């Protein structure tokens, strides 16, 4: 196998890279969190109350409660993706931040691990902010919801790693449009964020059920409604597998791009 596909190595230096990104975020934490909240909240209230008033219960709860858990997943996905795509690409290609770091005793594996963990952390912050709001609105059933926090982190790892693959291949920012239009937007519409996957035709249902966002929704929704998710092990394993495989591929592609 090509040396670019050597197993990822991890060292504590990755934490220094994570801390660099955290320090940037901390400088603009409040606008950043509010910005991350605004968009999903508009969807949640607009569709939740507007569309919800036309609907009977969906999945055994009012529509806005159903939608709230989907929104947590979709926002986590978006936050991780934006960080790994636009911010990651800026640091790799535009600002050459990675190049500077690589001159220090930090390897590319550490840089990418730091970026990956950071994308997942920022996604978790975004998911947590929404959970906090919907909790205050009374849409969260029980403390079982606390288990959604590690799940959200895992969802962040999955989409962070997938995003890093696209970043490693991107010639410019425009490239990311394809990823959004062909992958992320269809997932938001098909994976159970707005309506149960069971409403789809059988063929589409079986495809949609395999997508990472579907696994996320299958885990987070029951937890926020106060139930243990069915087939939790399978969904967790699927997300973990996606996260690790995607990270490995992202690392191989990034090594190919930068270690020439």
């Amino acid at each position, binding site marked *: 196998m090509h040396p670019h596909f050597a197993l990822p190595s991890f060292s*504590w*230096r990755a934490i*220094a*890279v994570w*801390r*660099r990104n955290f*320090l*940037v975020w901390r*400088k603009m934490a409040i606008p950043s969190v509010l910005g991350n909240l605004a968009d999903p909240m508009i969807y949640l209230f607009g569709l939740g109350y507007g569309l919800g008033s036309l609907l009977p219960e969906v999945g055994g709860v009012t529509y806005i409660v159903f939608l709230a858990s989907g929104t947590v997943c979709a926002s986590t996905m978006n936050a991780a993706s934006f960080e790994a795509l636009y911010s990651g690409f800026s640091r790799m290609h535009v*600002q*050459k*931040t990675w*190049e*500077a*770091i*690589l*001159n*220090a*005793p*930090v*390897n590319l594996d550490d840089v990418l691990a730091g970026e990956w963990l950071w994308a997942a952390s920022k996604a978790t912050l975004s998911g947590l902010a929404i959970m906090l709001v919907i909790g205050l609105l009374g849409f969260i059933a029980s403390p079982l919801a606390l288990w959604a926090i590690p799940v959200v982190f895992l969802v962040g790892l999955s989409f962070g790693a997938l995003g890093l693959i696209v970043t490693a291949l991107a010639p410019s920012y425009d490239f990311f449009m394809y990823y959004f239009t062909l992958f992320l937007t269809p997932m938001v519409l098909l994976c159970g964020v707005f309506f149960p996957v069971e409403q789809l035709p059988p063929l589409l249902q079986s495809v949609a059920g395999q997508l990472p966002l579907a696994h996320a929704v299958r885990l987070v929704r029951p937890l926020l409604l106060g139930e243990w998710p069915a087939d939790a092990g399978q969904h967790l394993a699927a997300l973990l597998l996606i996260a690790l495989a995607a990270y490995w591929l992202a690392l191989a592609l990034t090594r190919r791009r930068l*270690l*020439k």
Partner: protein
Amino acid sequence: MASLGPSPDRIVPPQEAIPVLSVSGLRKSYAGHEVVSGVGFTLARGECYGLLGPNGAGKTTTLRCCLGLTTPDAGVIRLLNEPVPARAREARMRVGVVPQFDNLDPDFSVAENLQVFGRYFGISDAETRRRIPDLLEFAGLTGKETARLATLSGGMKRRLTLARALVNDPDLLLLDEPTTGLDPQARHLIWERLKRLLQQGKTILLTTHFMDEAERLCHRLAILDAGRIVAEGGPRELIAGQIEPQVIEVYGEDAASWAGAEGPSLARRIEVSGETAFCYVDVGEVAPLLAQLARRPTLRTLHRPANLEDVFLKLTGRELRD
């Protein structure tokens, strides 16, 4: 105590005898095109060594290989007594790098740039904070701790990049075209700081295509062309060994035709570039050549000693490299 290059009659303690950097037989190809074709050189402690070459000569690729950022196709590199790329990370603990293009962190203030960079070396925040005043003083940036990057001039950014490269108190500094794009004042300040670092005993490897920079700073230098070292030595030594000692530049519309007709009988070597003929001569040939030229009122002349640029152009040619 700085030592000025290897001198055979000096008694050298054993640990100083180990080169700071040694490279031999270095080769690297991209898509079938060899950009580095068997480069080798050695840096002694306290030395300033220059890699000179036109664009595309392989200078930056050589530096990347030395840092372990690029794996060479062939060759042996030892950096601070560590094999590279196998233990490049350990070696980089004691190296500072000033890259060709500034890559400071635009999201951070001056002090934060140093603080965050120190963490990449595993230096504690307290320790970096202790070092920051000295680093800023060295870079002429005292009082700029909290300044945002966007408010700094090009020269200040360059000096901050130099300060950042010193955050780990390195033994070796790698500088890739450190003064490209700076105004003369800023360049002189950087040169003065680099000389100070040499006095402190640091070793410097720099790439440049400014001959005056190389002549001022480098104890020894190598001229690279098309991935090969075509000459190596001290600046004076190269000028003495590679080229005639005196140059008479002849300007004018008919300089080229003069150089074709009468020139060869008067000068050992003539190079014509546009409306200028460069006549390379020995000391004894200067007076007769100038006397001949005085009879041609349409030609203007400039007589000067040969310099490193003449050597460079002789060895690498006058055609454009881009």
